[in-house]
């Protein structure tokens, strides 16, 4: 008999997750109680500030700009990393050719990328999207290559025997096979995408959540700063649960 996800998740797991959340909230409350308001806003102050902000055009404009940049950055970085990863995974020569570039892209400091992007593209969306894409691409690339290397060789042989086209191999064999390791990487990528976009906006944009966070510092409006933090966390959740999970669920329905 089929059961819903809610009932198949063990109660104990949910209990401890809720407990972890409560501990975090408790710790936050305690910290705000022990320190000055200007250093740490309390949960109540943060929620009140968020509530005030939610109905403003200022909130909508900055949030939407950031969301758009994160989405495009992840899309470009993710697709680029995936396509290059599949190509390199299937062809040893291309993998070796891309090895030095992969090493540089993974090792280079994000701050260097931000400075270079500001130099090349100036302030604004192009720069922010470029930074996000460049920092995301090598993570997706490495995980795709590793995933392809781990595909069951007996299945590859079967596909070869029945003369699967390259397109069929990628669609029906490699993509479903690597979706496990790749989805774990994508969670990292989403979190990193949000962090990088906010950092880039803070350093070189006139709009977006990162820019708005920068203004809270100059205004010494700590509750609003914490409210923006909550918004950025919500964005990670929205991207993870509305974008990543459905794709993952589609590809892993055979495991349920």
């Amino acid at each position, binding site marked *: 008999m089929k059961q819903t996800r809610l009932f198949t998740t063990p109660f104990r797991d949910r209990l401890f997750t809720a407990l972890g959340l409560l501990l975090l909230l408790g710790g936050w409350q305690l910290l705000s109680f022990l320190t000055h308001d200007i250093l740490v806003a309390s949960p109540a102050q943060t929620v009140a500030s968020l509530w005030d902000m939610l109905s403003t055009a200022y909130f909508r404009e900055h949030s939407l700009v950031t969301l758009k940049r994160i989405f495009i950055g992840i899309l470009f970085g993710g697709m680029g990393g995936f396509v290059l990863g599949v190509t390199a995974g299937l062809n040893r020569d291309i993998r070796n050719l891309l090895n030095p570039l992969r090493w540089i892209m993974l090792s280079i400091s994000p701050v260097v990328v931000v400075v270079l992007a500001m130099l090349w593209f100036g302030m604004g969306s192009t720069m922010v999207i470029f930074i996000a894409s460049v920092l995301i691409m090598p993570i997706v690339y490495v995980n795709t290559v590793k995933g392809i290397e781990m595909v069951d060789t007996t299945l590859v042989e079967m596909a070869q*025997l*029945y*003369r*699967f086209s390259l397109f*069929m191999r990628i669609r*029906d*064999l490699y993509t479903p096979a690597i979706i496990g390791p790749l989805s774990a990487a994508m969670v990292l990528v989403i979190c990193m995408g949000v962090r990088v976009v906010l950092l880039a906006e803070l350093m070189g944009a006139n709009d977006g959540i990162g820019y708005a966070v920068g203004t809270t510092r100059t205004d010494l409006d700590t509750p609003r700063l914490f409210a923006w933090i909550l918004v950025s966390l919500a964005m990670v959740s929205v991207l993870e649960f509305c974008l990543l999970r459905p794709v993952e669920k589609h590809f892993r329905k*055979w*495991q349920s």
Partner: protein
Amino acid sequence: MTPAVCFDAVVKRYGSREVLSGLAFEIQHREIVGLLGRSGIGKTTLLKLVAGLEKPTRGKVRVQARRIGYVFQEPRLLPWKTTLENVTLPLRAAGLRLNEAVERATRLLAAMGLSEFLQSYPSQLSGGMCQRVSLARAFTVGPDILLLDEPFSSLDIEMKNELQAMLVERLAVQPATVLYVSHAPEEVRQIADRLLTLTAAGTLVEASLQNTPRPDGKPERSGVRASCSA
């Protein structure tokens, strides 16, 4: 007439280890040949050479076939595809339209008693059923040559007999040249026209259909052709 399969002085080496040594034999069209030999002696390598999955180190392998079906030791089904999709995919690869491929695969799966499991994933099927799907996949492409690599070795006797009967039944409907690898002579003897034994020296000898070959793999009767006919 050109044989369906012809090995001409075929040598296969993996590193310094020679698995097949100057192998020369033919299999005629629609002939069912049983290939015996100890485990790890190179029977699978021989099948892979016929299938084009391996290349000979020396010599030539000539195969006259448009389509080859292969039933591996393990089912090798894509775990994320349903029974129907697993059987449909080779047909799609062969260029059939989706509805045509689905219709053909459904018909074959029904003939093999798998109608109820079309939408099941391999993880929801027993080992015997998975191997039955693998057999259906091999037949669905309409193979000129069917390669069977100890296809029922991991199954219990009852399931083995059932699938063997299904194989014979299917071959009566869809005749093909068959190369049936096994280390159990009694298994292939039931359907083979001819038995060959692969020896430890990497050569082939013809074995009797009546008697069980000697355990050391030495010939009871030799006479394997040493070259391909034109």
